[in-house]
């Protein structure tokens, strides 16, 4: 009986030992299945087709071209490889401008034929209509519809997930936004982080360190919404005034807030590494006549470099994944930022802002999961870097 108990407890403990591995696998599995679904979605909004005149030589259009056509950025078919004639667009909402109620029928029952007739009679017309509405008839043809390709998503420069007829899911602006904000955050945090770590481990007395340490921990404990709120109320208006910006919500505001948030991670890890620098090394340096400061920057900092590096990388990881604070202060403009003073949008902020409105199972919804996959892998790689750095360090110390 006793043996049985021992054994079963052992099994339960072993099972719970692997729970984090299982969670990681589940995260990968669920995010992937949803995210990869995006590549099975058609470029043109589900259930709709683009109909053109049969004489029109253009038979395929990319999502970006479709958007340009319907935004009237492209107004001539020759820009799309067709004949030299003006593009005219037709959406279902425009039906009342072209037809009388009689022609459409009270239930729109004749709308399909009417629109088909319109497209057949006008060689420059492109119509965006439900696929079931258009009758198979002479005089019109449908633009070929492919599935959304990974190249369009990963290399796309435009993020317009709600655009009709063809939503654009280019992740580059979001990726650029994330990189910009994190990069600047680390640039701001780095001098502070290293100085504070040096101060705490080398300069300050035990008493001062005893005060600083809980303060740094507290900085780590403040919820990100509170940072976001503080940034929104204090930092954003301040930046707007200082730089004379039209809007204060900018990449700079985001990176300032992120710098404060990433700081505790950098300080804690770097300080730990410096304190672990062997006493004999320091003593040898001091005995050779070096001052305390010379010892710090010639001996202590180089010997704890890998610890400092993992602190910085962990800080980057924290900055990349931060959601709420960034969402609240960066202004959320999904364009590739020209400068850090412009509004921008990061991957986590996009997920948080848009998932609520995206209809479940649709292309938009799946694209947000794909962003989650990308984010997961960025942080996964960052973590692996940290593991690598610290494992090399352990090997060196042995």
């Amino acid at each position: 009986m006793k043996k049985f108990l021992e054994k079963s407890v052992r099994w339960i403990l072993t099972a719970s030992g692997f729970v984090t591995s299982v969670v990681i696998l589940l995260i990968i599995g669920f995010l992937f299945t949803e995210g990869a679904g995006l590549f099975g979605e058609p470029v043109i909004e589900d259930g709709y087709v683009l109909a053109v005149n049969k004489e029109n030589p253009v038979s395929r259009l990319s999502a970006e071209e479709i958007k340009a056509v319907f935004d009237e950025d492209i107004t001539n078919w020759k820009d799309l490889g067709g004949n030299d004639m003006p593009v005219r667009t037709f959406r279902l909402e425009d039906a009342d401008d072209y037809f009388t109620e009689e022609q459409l029928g009270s239930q729109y029952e004749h709308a399909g034929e009417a629109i088909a007739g319109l497209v057949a009679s006008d060689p420059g017309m492109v119509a965006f209509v439900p696929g079931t509405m258009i009758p198979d008839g002479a005089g019109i043809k449908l633009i070929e519809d492919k599935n959304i390709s990974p190249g369009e998503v990963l290399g796309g420069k435009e993020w317009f997930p709600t655009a009709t007829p063809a939503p654009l899911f280019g992740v580059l602006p979001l990726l650029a936004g994330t990189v910009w904000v994190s990069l600047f955050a680390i640039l701001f945090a780095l001098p502070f982080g290293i100085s504070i770590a040096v101060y705490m481990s080398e300069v300050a007395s035990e008493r001062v360190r005893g005060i600083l340490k809980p303060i740094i921990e507290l900085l780590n404990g403040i919820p990100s919404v509170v940072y976001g709120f503080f940034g929104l109320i204090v930092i954003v208006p301040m930046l707007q005034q200082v730089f004379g910006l039209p809007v204060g919500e900018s990449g700079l505001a985001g990176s300032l807030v992120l710098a404060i948030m990433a700081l505790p991670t950098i300080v804690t890890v770097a300080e730990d590494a410096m304190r672990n620098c062997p006493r004999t090394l320091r003593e040898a340096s001091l005995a050779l006549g070096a001052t305390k400061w010379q010892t710090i920057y010639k001996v202590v900092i180089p010997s704890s470099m890998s610890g400092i590096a993992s602190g910085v990388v962990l800080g980057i990881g924290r900055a990349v994944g931060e959601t709420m604070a960034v969402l609240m202060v960066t202004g959320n403009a999904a364009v590739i930022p020209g400068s850090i003073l412009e509004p921008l949008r990061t991957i986590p902020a996009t997920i948080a802002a848009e998932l609520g409105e995206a209809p479940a199972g649709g292309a938009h919804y799946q694209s947000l999961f794909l962003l989650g996959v990308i984010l997961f892998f960025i942080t996964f790689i960052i973590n692996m870097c940290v593991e690598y750095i610290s494992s090399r360090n352990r090997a060196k110390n042995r």
Partner: protein
Amino acid sequence: METPTYPKGYSSRKRRSQAVAFTICRLLSLLIVLVLFAILGFIIVKGAGVISWDFLTKAPEDGMTSGGIFPAIVGTLLLMLGSAIVAFPVGIMSGIYMNEYASRGWVVKFIRLMTNNLSGVPSIVFGLFGMALFVKYLGFGDSILAGSLTLGLLSLPLVIRTTEEALKDIPDGIREGSLALGATKLQTIWKVVLPMGMPRIITGLILSLGRVSGETAPILFTCAAYFFPQLPSSIFDQCMALPYHLYVISTSGTDIEAQQPIAYGTALVLIVIVLVINLLAGLLRKHFEKGLKMH
């Protein structure tokens, strides 16, 4: 503060560069302390005027432009409790396994790698995952259950790590002593190792609760309600939560003039929860450290 002493032979240039470097370190450290106090002070000063008995015990009224935040406080406490129920038992057991049972090196290494990776996963990814698994796949809907499970998974790595570290510091001699007296491994863990490690484990658990209390991104799509003035009646209900309430009120408010004080008040309550939790953990740590020294 310790003033650096200079032996006689140092040149004045060396002395000066040391003084400058240390002053910079001091100033930057001071600056960060000031930043923290600025953030805390700002929220405390602006929020203190809003806090009243009614604010703490009443539901929001008039389209969230007046009234209190009681449902949000209750919601946050419920989510903390729920995540604790999810994460504590599994996390502590996992930590015990890592330190007491797992013998082969690569198993421990692999699990530790996975735990570290999980702790680096951004909270919004937990939110996505919680939505896909708990809300949609398992069909819990937006509910306290789904939110607690998501937050529980999020705090799991922290619980595992603190448990592991607490047990690692217990000398092997104590385990061997117990085993030599004829106790089984399980008895040793249950009667000797766990009680000794408990103080530090509890400190870690409290800190993980602090983290959970402020998380917003994981509950955005799994649990948080924009407006849900009555208290939840089952774990399948949505609930309001303090961090989400603060986010909603400060970014998508309908009446900024009237809602700003509420935002300050909510931020203050959130900060107070975090402060109390940090203070509690700090005091516990000190208390137990004293106890250990006496032995």
